């Protein structure tokens, strides 16, 4: 199916994240959960942010909507959100400078940027019906009256593939299965036709056949609504199925950025390469041992000096990787990589 989408144009830019830093000052020391992250999200394209637990992928997503848990806060960087209006004008807002509870932030959250979380159980209220929750969003953001909200809500439930939408509109969320609840979450996130959808591990809690349903649904909805999607996941299989562009994160930094085909077929960063080698494949081509990355992700209080991946890397340049944290080098084939091996590439 996809992969043949035209390359993104500047007109389609929705979100630019630049040099984002999010810190959690704890008693034990400051955790630099996000330490200088850059990426862009375009209309009608899917950006997958992939990494292992603790790499800062969820915190990056939360900071876009100013939803980072206390005591974490954005200490540096910009999150420029481009709002395109009907006659082609563009308004740019720096979300990083807005307060979490400000009117401007609240009018963007849910209206222009929708969000879907990993655990539908904890994100939906058990004491309100599906309809209560979905119509609240519509009434709040679109100023619709109750009847209109109900009609639109039922339409949206039908759109996300919920059987008997009119009856399920009045159901409580605990009466629905996990997959159905995730569909309700998606309906709530998309009912105001946001320009950007942020989905944080939307299928991780689901079974594989349900995951397939939800992934297909997200692809269909993107084709219909043309929104930009930012999908956070740890599953490289999901990335390969869903992404147009990929951000690979490690210890709060973007190790590598590029389009999905290049990431999977010409990975550059040693971490990306190692990650791809370590996943079991369904192919029977070769019956070899899995390669694994030695060691483990360091404790957030003891970040290594120099390149964060240095201590686990097989391609270390002695004397340099321990000392320098490489900046992002642009690659000729597009995208960027934070590895000293690609220093010359940028120079040429």
């Amino acid at each position, binding site marked *: *199916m*996809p*992969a043949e989408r035209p390359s993104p144009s500047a007109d389609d830019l929705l979100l630019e994240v630049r040099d984002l830093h999010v810190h959690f000052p704890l008693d034990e020391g400051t955790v630099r959960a996000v330490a200088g992250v850059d990426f862009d999200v375009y209309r009608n394209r899917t950006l997958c942010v992939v990494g*292992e*637990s603790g790499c800062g992928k969820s915190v990056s997503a939360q900071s876009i909507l100013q939803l980072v848990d206390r005591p974490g806060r954005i200490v540096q960087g910009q999150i420029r959100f481009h709002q395109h209006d009907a006659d082609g004008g563009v308004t740019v807002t720096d979300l990083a400078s807005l307060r979490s509870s400000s009117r401007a932030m609240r009018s963007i959250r849910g209206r222009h940027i929708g969000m879907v979380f990993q655990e539908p159980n904890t994100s939906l209220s058990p004491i309100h019906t599906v309809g209560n929750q979905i119509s609240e969003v519509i009434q709040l953001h679109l100023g619709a009256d109750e009847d209109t909200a109900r009609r639109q809500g039922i339409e949206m439930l039908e759109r996300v593939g919920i*059987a008997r939408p009119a009856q399920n509109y009045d159901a409580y969320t605990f009466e629905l*299965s996990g*997959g*159905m609840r995730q569909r309700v979450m998606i309906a709530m996130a998309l009912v105001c036709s946001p320009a950007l959808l942020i989905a944080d591990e939307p299928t991780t809690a689901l*079974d*594989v*056949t*349900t*995951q*397939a*349903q939800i*992934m*297909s649904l997200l692809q269909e909805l993107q084709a219909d609504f043309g929104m930009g999607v930012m999908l956070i996941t*740890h*599953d*490289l*299989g*999901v*990335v*390969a*199925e869903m*992404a147009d562009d990929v951000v690979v994160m490690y210890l709060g930094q973007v190790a590598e950025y590029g389009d*999905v*085909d290049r990431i*999977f*077929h010409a990975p550059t960063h040693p971490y990306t390469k*190692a*990650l*791809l080698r*370590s*996943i*079991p*494949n*369904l*192919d*029977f*081509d070769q019956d070899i*041992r*899995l*390669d*694994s*990355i*030695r060691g*483990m*992700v360091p404790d957030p209080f003891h970040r290594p000096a120099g390149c964060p991946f240095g201590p686990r890397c097989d391609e270390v340049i002695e004397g340099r990787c321990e000392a320098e944290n490489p900046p992002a080098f642009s690659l000729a084939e597009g995208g960027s990589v934070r590895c000293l091996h690609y220093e010359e590439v940028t120079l040429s």
Partner: protein
Amino acid sequence: MSGTNGTLLSVRNLSMFFPVRGGFLQGHRGEVRAVDDVSFDIQVGETLGLVGESGCGKTTTGRCILRVVAPTAGELWYHPREGEPVDLARLDTAGLLPWRQEIRMIFQDPFASLNPRLPVLEIVGECLKVNRGLRGSALEDRVAELLGLVGLRPEYMRRYPHAFSGGERQRIGIARALALNPRLVVADEAVSALDVSVRSQTLNLLQDLQNEMQLTYLFISHDLSVVRYVCNRVAVMYVGKLVELADTRSLFLTPQHPYTEALLSSVPKPDPRIRSQRIVLEGDVPDPAQPPSGCHFHPRCRYAVDRCAEETPPLRETAGGHHVACHLADEIELAGIQG
């Protein structure tokens, strides 16, 4: 590879029903058929995968074999190294004691499965104390050896679980499972809670240990790509029933049950160039308290005929070692993974 040394465990007509209670005075209101008439054999030295989605009964099957719960019906014939087979389903706690040293378990959650209040020495060493009467330096030496075996530094034995990461905790759990030189290890989602890079380390470790210690694994997992990597044979469960059982290669390349086909096509492949034609199943996994009539899969099956709603298909052998529970197994052509 696949077992030629005979059978280690024969599961026969295993059923586990949990009563559903509710209402005033906790009246009996029906039952959840978590495992419903399941039979299979585990061969010596093989890794048998047990896959399915949540609620399909794979974990309960594992727990019945370990006799964490007493099965409602059925037999569990374990073949010891010497002597006659024993039916584990009929033994009481005292009778199970010798067999529990030979059949061990690795848990899914590396946090919940280690008592946070005990040091590693106690966690790994407890079964040695209880069953082998090891004490003092003999115990410490054995625990040190076990920690070395799973790739942890023996000095760590005085530490408490909170000092370790998820992957290291899972290694401690493996060391505990191996302490008594078991023959069969039931690994219940043993790598599901781990990150990608740690998961591959752990899978490699499990394979090395299998070769070194001649272990047999029952590998319970929902992750088909992991199962394909470690298992010799795979059994697929759906709503308490075994629907297909075959060696890994033929199950993945030529599945014969429509559910297996859908399951395989649902797994996201880590290659953007082969974005798959997913078979997206309609609806949800049925409630095991009220399973559909006939073949439990028929309401979601795209090949279903009238007969499927009426008759429960038995598990039958179609080709060498390939078992399937589908009326139409001989008539329909199903797609496996391209490999």
